[in-house]
């Protein structure tokens, strides 16, 4: 029981901090932070499965996040019929060509022995395939992108409910992880890190520049939501009544009727955004709790023991007859699928898909810092890491600004150093995260909540 005390204390401090933000800044900001903390927690669960359970270092988190986001667009946006008419055929033909290339390459690889000739023929098939793809795709892509380019200019999605896309995002990310795992998992740890980092970069650059797919850097806005819209809430009777009931004591203090109405309007607007965010919080919390239960169960199951055995001593585990290659691939797929789910959740929360915003700094390295800081191999730790680091990432700038003002208050307003420091306040977040990571790595390498092994 003593072990759990730390966990409970750490989480209470975290929740207290978020409540403090609610009191000092606003409840809307506090809930935004909480939602992002929950999304980060899902990502860290995914990364922790790979790193903490199996010791696989995956720096490609950005790629899976982006793919999960893409799934939201592909699933929930209404299809653009005209674009399908003008260019759909070419795109479908391209898919067939890609499938054909894969089969031909597989055929050559299976059928012939390893030789120079085989390598050259595989290379020429791929090169010829790419040229064929470009010839087939070019007119189609041009036609699709010219269909009302300001609003659509892409194929659109399937028009299905947005929650469905979370599953699709996980599936997409998982299948990508299957391919990458087949290619890269044999590599040594630091090579694997570099390879996954670069592959993620390739994926994001494809999403960014293939405008027929999801408008690329032109972004997709106004995505569907699993929660009500603010505008609808503000006009619905029951919601206004609810707000009035909650704030009746405050409203009763105001005497004039017009002032009262104005105050009520403002409250309804504030409350509607809080309500929407609460809906998201509920959804995200459900996902986090389900994942937590499943991963905890898995960690203490025979399977989890096997993974830890492989992590701690590959050769011994292999001697015991465990198939290391297969288990690594499986866990790589599982972890990536969870990250893909988080990517879909994030895009749903934002309501827009901005491929230009996927940068390794924010979506790979910060997530890794979360896992390391929170506690590798411990799900409670990983989730806490997601909360702590995201909180610091968001709140570092206001805190830095406050401190700068405090320490330079004796200087005049126009002092060059002061102005420069105030301008660069947003960048203190990198400093805080970096120093935090270095300190944790040095003095508490197992993270805030270390892994604990229950003897069964």
């Amino acid at each position: 029981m003593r072990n759990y005390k730390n966990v409970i204390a750490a989480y209470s401090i975290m929740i207290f901090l978020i409540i403090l933000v609610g009191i000092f800044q606003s409840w809307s900001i506090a809930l935004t932070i909480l939602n992002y903390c929950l999304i980060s927690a899902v990502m860290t669960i995914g990364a922790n499965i790979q790193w903490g359970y199996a010791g696989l270092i995956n720096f490609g988190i950005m790629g899976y996040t982006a793919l999960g986001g893409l799934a939201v667009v592909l699933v929930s946006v209404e299809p653009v019929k005209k674009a399908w008419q003008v260019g759909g055929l070419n795109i479908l033909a391209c898919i067939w060509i890609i499938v054909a290339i894969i089969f031909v390459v597989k055929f050559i690889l299976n059928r012939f022995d390893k030789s120079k000739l085989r390598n050259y023929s595989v290379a020429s098939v791929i090169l010829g395939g790419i040229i064929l793809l470009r010839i087939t795709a070019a007119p189609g892509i041009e036609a699709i992108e010219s269909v009302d380019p300001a609003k659509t200019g892409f194929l659109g999605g399937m028009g299905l409910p947005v929650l469905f896309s979370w599953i699709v995002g996980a599936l997409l990310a998982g299948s990508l992880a299957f391919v990458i795992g087949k290619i890269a998992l044999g590599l040594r740890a630091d090579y694997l890190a570099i390879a996954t980092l670069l592959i993620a970069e390739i994926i994001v650059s494809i999403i960014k520049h293939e405008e027929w797919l999801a408008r690329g850097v032109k972004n997709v806005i106004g995505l569907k939501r699993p929660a009500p819209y603010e505008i609808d809430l503000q006009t619905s009777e029951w919601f206004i009544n609810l707000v009035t009931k909650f704030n009746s004591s405050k409203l009763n203090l105001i005497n004039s009727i017009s002032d009262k109405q104005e105050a009520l309007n403002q409250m309804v607007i504030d409350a509607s955004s809080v309500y929407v965010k609460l809906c998201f919080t509920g959804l995200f919390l459900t996902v986090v709790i389900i994942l937590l239960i499943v991963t905890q169960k898995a960690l203490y199951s025979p399977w989890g023991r096997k993974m830890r055995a492989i992590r701690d001593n590959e050769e011994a585990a292999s001697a015991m007859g465990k198939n290391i290659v297969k288990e690594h691939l499986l866990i790589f797929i599982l972890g990536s699928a969870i990250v893909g789910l988080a990517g879909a959740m994030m895009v749903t929360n934002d309501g827009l898909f901005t491929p230009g915003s996927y940068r390794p700094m924010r979506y790979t390295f910060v997530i890794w810092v979360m896992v390391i800081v929170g506690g590798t191999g411990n799900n409670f730790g990983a989730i806490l890491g997601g909360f702590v680091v995201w909180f610091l990432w968001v709140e570092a700038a206001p805190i830095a600004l406050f401190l700068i003002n405090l320490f330079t208050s004796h200087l005049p307003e126009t002092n060059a150093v002061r102005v420069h420091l105030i301008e660069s306040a947003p960048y203190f977040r990198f400093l805080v995260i970096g120093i935090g990571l270095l300190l944790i790595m040095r003095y508490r390498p197992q993270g805030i909540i270390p892994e604990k092994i229950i003897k069964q």
Partner: protein
Amino acid sequence: MDFLNAIIVLFNFTVIPALAYGSQLALGAIFVTLIYAVLRFANFATGDMMSFGTMFAVILTYYFQSLGFGLGVLPTALLTIPFAILMMILYMLIIDKFVFSYYRIKKSPPVQFAMVSVGVMFVTQALIRIIIGPSDRRFLDGEKFIIKATEFKEITGLAEGITLKSTQAITIIVTLIVVSIMFWFLNRTKTGTSMRAYSDNEDLALLSGIDPKRVVLITWVIAGILATIGGVLYGLDKSYRPFVYFNNMLPIFAAAIVGGIGNPFGAFLGGYVIAFAEIFVTYAYKRFISYLLPEHLEPDSLLQLLSTDYKFAVSFSILVIVLLIRPSGIFKGKVI
């Protein structure tokens, strides 16, 4: 005549830029590879360390310009490089003392080192942005061109011209000088030999009386020189922007691995392999082909294998292919 024009088009738009870009990558790749060979970790702070050195050069260039110093036709930045290198080495040694040395003594696994270098990356990036800000800065002065296209056309009477920017020439010349001095040092001097011995087999090197502290110190000094010069040359050629330097780390890694990580000569060539591949695959060959083919056969399309948006993707794909076929790199690297 048409054949000559075609060659000149190709030379102007692919070979010269690729040589310059390749030199910049090569310097970075040797930096990565040296750290990997001697200190035994993949340094994820590479791009930001290069950026940090360049930042000093930029600040000093502005300072010198305000004092009225200059090199005439050459950019003032060349004058500031030695000072920037000193600052850079100082920073690297401080980082090494307070961060890396602890893990080196503990003999931590490379993965832990890599994570620590991520922490260094965050800190370095923060310092750069706090000191100089994230905006785009040009600090090139002096003569911009050595050969202008119009002059070239007038002299030779050809339809196509060659443009040689002074930064490109400086990049290639400086790289060749720095790299040859470095190879001379590594292969011919006693200190260089002791570094290679330490990189090959640490225990045997220690046994034969090589001082590990000295080897580490020299490695950081060389790394500081390479990082700063590579960063300044890139900044002169394009422009100085902290964010871009972080992104450049990726092709630099690709170059180091393609050349065989831990092998400086491989890294040097790897830089050019990556640069040429990036530019050759994304270059539109229309103008080149139209000089070679008779008029009625002129192609309609741009004849571009991949659009320039995929510049980085090309180098990463090469890396993936190399990792699959020959994980030790084209020139057999070190497998620790």
